[in-house]
């Protein structure tokens, strides 16, 4: 549908390159993703062919360093690409996300040997990375994790279970948060990150979890039962640094989620503005009713704001400055916009929007995940407020 996707200006980083890359991804999404997404999503199948295309095009490696098989481009361009992909199918962005988070954390904090061993496979997408903090008793309160890692000669022995692991059934390497010192105070000093490889003895996928939306990437629960991980796989080679390492990666995940949300909101809007000109009631297109026009204007305005906020946050991250506040605001705002727009689009569609015959119901099922994952929006508000109180501290 050249008509709808083409009217939107592309906002990306890296000059002409970023725009061209995004334009090409947009075309691929229009031609290959959108015509197949609904059927694949309803079937619950893993989109193997689309995944192969993404690997072939080099989408996983956009932000990876050129020294390790990436393109060395900006998070701003990455954000534009993730938005386009999610306009087709939000789940695909989740397949990419954990590779990019792992890649960034390994590049920032890993040893040279870890970079050489893990980055090239993650950059091409040939290897699936997972990023696993959450446990049955630790979600928002990430420091409450109970998985332990204790040193045994040249290895660590890991015990515990990890919940809600995106891409968990197909993972090759799991960047996992554990406690090397469960009694440490403050608690985060006892957290260490490991690169757990899939064939580790004692590691197993317990089950995959069915869910409302966000199909495509599966969500798994993992068991670690006396899993023996070589000490070489302790991220960065030192204990007690896992929490800081993880926090730095969450910003990358939040840029991804904010970009996804913008894409889903855009898809919901695109569907609404087309349908509003096709459906007639009371002798005219519903697009001519003011009630519908108000919705369209409101949606488009918020989507543009979400896009600009998200690119702005990505640009801040690219600049190397502290960006938790900017990224948090983008994630919070864009994901709320996605929730609103998917519902508003459904209202514009009337009854047919509630059926499985149009993709609006998928946008509506996909949107809430983004308000919950990568830090709930409640937590996001708390993080934003705490940072503001620091910045505006009155003596």
């Amino acid at each position, binding site marked *: *549908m*050249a*008509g709808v996707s*083409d*009217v939107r200006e592309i906002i990306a980083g890296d*000059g*002409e*390159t970023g725009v*061209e*890359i995004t*334009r*090409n*991804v947009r*075309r*691929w999404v229009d031609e290959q993703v959108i015509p197949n997404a609904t059927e694949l999503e309803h079937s619950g199948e893993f989109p193997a062919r689309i995944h192969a*295309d993404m690997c*072939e*095009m*080099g*989408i996983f*490696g*956009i932000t990876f360093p050129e020294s390790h098989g990436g*393109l060395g*481009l900006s998070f701003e361009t990455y954000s534009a690409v993730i938005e386009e992909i999610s306009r087709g199918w939000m789940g695909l962005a989740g397949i990419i996300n954990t590779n990019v988070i792992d890649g960034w954390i390994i590049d920032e904090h890993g040893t040279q040997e870890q970079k050489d061993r893990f980055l090239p496979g993650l950059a091409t997408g040939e290897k699936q990375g997972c990023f696993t903090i959450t446990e049955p008793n630790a979600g928002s309160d990430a420091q409450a994790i109970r998985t332990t890692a204790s040193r045994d000669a040249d290895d660590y022995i890991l015990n515990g279970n990890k919940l809600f692991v995106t891409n968990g059934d197909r993972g090759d390497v799991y960047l996992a948060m554990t406690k090397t010192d469960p009694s440490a105070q403050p608690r985060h000093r006892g957290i260490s990150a490991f690169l757990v490889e899939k064939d580790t003895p004692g590691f197993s996928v317990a089950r995959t979890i069915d869910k409302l939306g966000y199909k495509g990437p599966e969500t798994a629960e993992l068991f670690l039962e006396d899993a023996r991980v070589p000490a070489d796989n302790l991220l960065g080679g030192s204990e007690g640094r896992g929490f800081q390492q993880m926090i730095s990666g969450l910003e990358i995940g939040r840029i991804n989620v904010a970009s996804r949300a913008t894409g889903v909101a855009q898809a919901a809007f695109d569907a609404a503005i087309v349908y509003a000109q096709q459906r007639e009631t009371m002798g005219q297109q519903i697009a001519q009713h003011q009630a519908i026009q108000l919705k369209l204007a409101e949606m488009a305005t918020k989507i543009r704001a979400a896009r600009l906020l998200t690119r702005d946050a990505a640009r801040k991250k690219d600049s190397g400055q502290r960006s938790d506040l900017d990224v948090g605001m983008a994630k919070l705002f864009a994901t709320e916009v996605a929730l609103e727009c998917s519902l508003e689009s459904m209202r514009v569609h009337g009854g047919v929007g509630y059926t499985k015959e149009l993709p609006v119901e998928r946008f509506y099922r996909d949107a809430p995940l983004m308000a919950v994952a990568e830090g709930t929006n409640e937590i996001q508000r708390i993080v934003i407020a705490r940072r503001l109180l620091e910045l505006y501290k009155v003596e």
Partner: protein
Amino acid sequence: MDVIVCVKQIPDPETPAAAFKVDEAAMQVLPAQGISPVISPFDAQAVEAALRIKDASGDGCVNIISLGPDSARDAIKHSLAMGADEGYHLKDDAFEGGDAWTTALALSKAIQHLGVPDVLIFGRQAADWDQGTVGSIVAELLDLPSATVLRAVELNGDRITVSRVVADGFENIELPTPCVLTISNEFGDPRYPQLRQIMQAARKQVTEFTAADLGLDPSEVGAAGARVQMHALYQPTSDVEVEIIEGDTPEEKAAGLVNALREAKIL
């Protein structure tokens, strides 16, 4: 094996019909608002064919030539991003308002200027005016054998085996090199550019040639040299009437449809 592909940038054929407008007085197609022009789809397939020839032969270059305004550079960049090696842009106000003949003349001069390669490839037709003549005129001007509307191209030593799409099937023939080929949609989808190649293409210089660079006098090209004269350009109107065939069973409806088609003298 060295290949040159000639590509044209055209208004996006996916443009919704409602956004397609012509200026009848100026006899021009008006660019649709906000919809970027694209490489003609047959030409993207021609680039794909060239890249496959290069891969199969194991060496050589795929170079791209496009005649058109500033924006035609994007069609060249797209071809480079698909994997082509160098791009050449024939850009001169004097080229404006030309026809298939002046385009073919300028292209053939550029090809001679660069050196006639082993294979010259075109799309079967540009998907805007759909004339399908430029490739054949270039073949004639350069005195090269040609095969048009191809669905398959294979290297066979220093010869090329092709399969043509003809009215009642396919025609398989062999050509010596150098030769001219035009590629049809049956050839198959062009590859999506890899992001790395898009990045490299964005950094690559495109060489520009004016009419004078190619030894062409302004009177030979563009509107001045055109041999086709346009008398009118307009959008035909079509009045579509819909008739719903009623019936209680599928059989009744089918019988009603057959009657209606007979009455309309379609059957």
